[in-house]
């Protein structure tokens, strides 16, 4: 049985509908990439899963049970966490405090729990900066805190929204190299990513979104560049 799935998920902002029936499946321990142009609905999809946008209950299922529209803090407690777009750290609080808020409200851990120490092992620079206020960190370090915060929620599936955005290539590499350690213990990852190549390399399966619909899905290694560019830019649409 899949861990997390969406079924004909429809969502939007006010009168504007951004997603027109998304079917997504995430299995335990796998890495799924979501690619698509700006405005394709990737972030909206993650926000809908997380309960930040109103959706019908059966549109999102966790362990086969309907959880759509559940409040975000309850989603966290049932094992879904998010590394939000724009990092969204708690300004005025230190790195350690940011991490602590997450671990103090975490889900019951499955297997070996994430601890502050393990997060520091994953991103050693954070250990040095533990007592620094987060607004004084570099963008990459802030992203590491945000990922660490997501991990400390002890998720079974972690939704990562554009974690490479605006970071230096070296930092992106550093962060992506850390991800296998996350999935190694059975945590599934959903990566929303602008860099298609990176997304393809980092994931087992891949979904491409265009204008609120899934235009391509499959095993990442089987998908060709041409398939992706057709799905990404809607070439098939143009030919209709």
């Amino acid at each position, binding site marked *: 049985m899949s861990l997390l799935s969406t079924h004909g998920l429809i969502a939007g902002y006010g009168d504007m509908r951004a997603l027109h029936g998304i079917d997504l499946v995430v299995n335990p321990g796998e890495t799924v990439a979501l690619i698509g142009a700006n405005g394709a609905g990737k972030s909206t999809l993650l926000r809908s899963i997380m309960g930040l946008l109103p959706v019908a209950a059966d549109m999102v299922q966790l362990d086969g049970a309907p959880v759509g529209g559940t*409040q975000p*803090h309850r989603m966290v407690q049932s094992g879904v*966490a*998010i590394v939000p777009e724009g990092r*969204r750290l708690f300004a*005025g609080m230190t790195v350690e*405090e940011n991490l602590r*808020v997450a671990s103090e*409200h975490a889900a019951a851990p499955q297997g070996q729990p994430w601890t502050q120490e393990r997060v520091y092992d994953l991103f050693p620079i954070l250990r040095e900066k533990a007592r620094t206020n987060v607004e004084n960190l570099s963008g990459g370090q802030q992203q590491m805190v945000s990922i660490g915060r997501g991990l400390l929620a002890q998720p079974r599936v972690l939704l990562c929204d554009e974690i490479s955005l605006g970071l230096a290539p070296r930092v992106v590499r550093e962060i992506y190299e850390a991800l296998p350690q996350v999935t190694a213990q059975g945590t599934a990852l959903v990566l929303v990513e602008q860099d298609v190549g990176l997304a393809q390399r980092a994931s087992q399966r891949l979904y491409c979104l265009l204008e609120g619909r899934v235009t391509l899905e499959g095993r990442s290694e089987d998908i060709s560049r041409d398939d992706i560019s057709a799905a990404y830019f809607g070439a098939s649409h143009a030919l209709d």
Partner: protein
Amino acid sequence: MHWIEGIVQGILLGGLYAQYALGMALMFGVMKIVNVTHGDLVILLALIGISFADFAGLGPWSVLATLVPIGAAIGWLLQRAMLNRVVGNDPLPSLIATFGLSIALQNAMLVVWSADTRSLSGGGIQQASIEIGPLFVGVLPLIVLICATLLTGGLDAVLRFTRYGRSLRAASADVEAAAMVGVNPKSVYATATAIAVGILGFAATFQAMRSTVAPADGPFQLIYAFEAVIIGGLGSIWGAFTGAMILGVSQAIGFRINPGFGILAGHIVFLAVLAIRPQGIFQRKS
């Protein structure tokens, strides 16, 4: 001598105002709302306390011990039943809702307790004073000030060092992000309001012991709390405390210049601070 005495009286008065201001600073800091019934709740709790003293024969300290949990319960209920529905980016609904409640509450108190001014007997403590150097200082005002300092320090410690404090600071910084790491905003809010109104249990007891209360007095306490918070700088607990001291001193000195000028002097200092240093005197760098 005259002026030093005024300043001392003002600081002591500030101790009472700090107890009004703490809860307002806390609630605004985390929810960006002002509870217009803040002052009315002081009066409500004071009147409840006075009735307890009258009918159950409770002494002032028993009244205090009763009013704090009652206040906390009222605050929790207020947030759960009402304020959680109106917290948001638009300031209008929370303001109007609590404004309406304030009118209803003032008049309900008028029906129950009539317009008479009442006070709480302190069993002689009101008259006691101690000599500090050349000054005579009332024991009760001193207790109020010490209590205010302890409450401020305690609240500050809760915010800094406890799980709840961290979740509250996280929710103040970014409520959606807090929810995304598992913090339940509505329960953080309910606890914040429970603390805020619980502290008013102290304020109510001391207000009723130091002077008198009547159902229509609430708006004044609200305004003093507000002025203290703004003078001290938004969002800072010790700022609210210091703002309360400055307000108390301004009123006490104003009162010495001319008894009709006391309260007005506080308003003038408030407006001057807004004009000269709108971020408040003790606002931390953001």
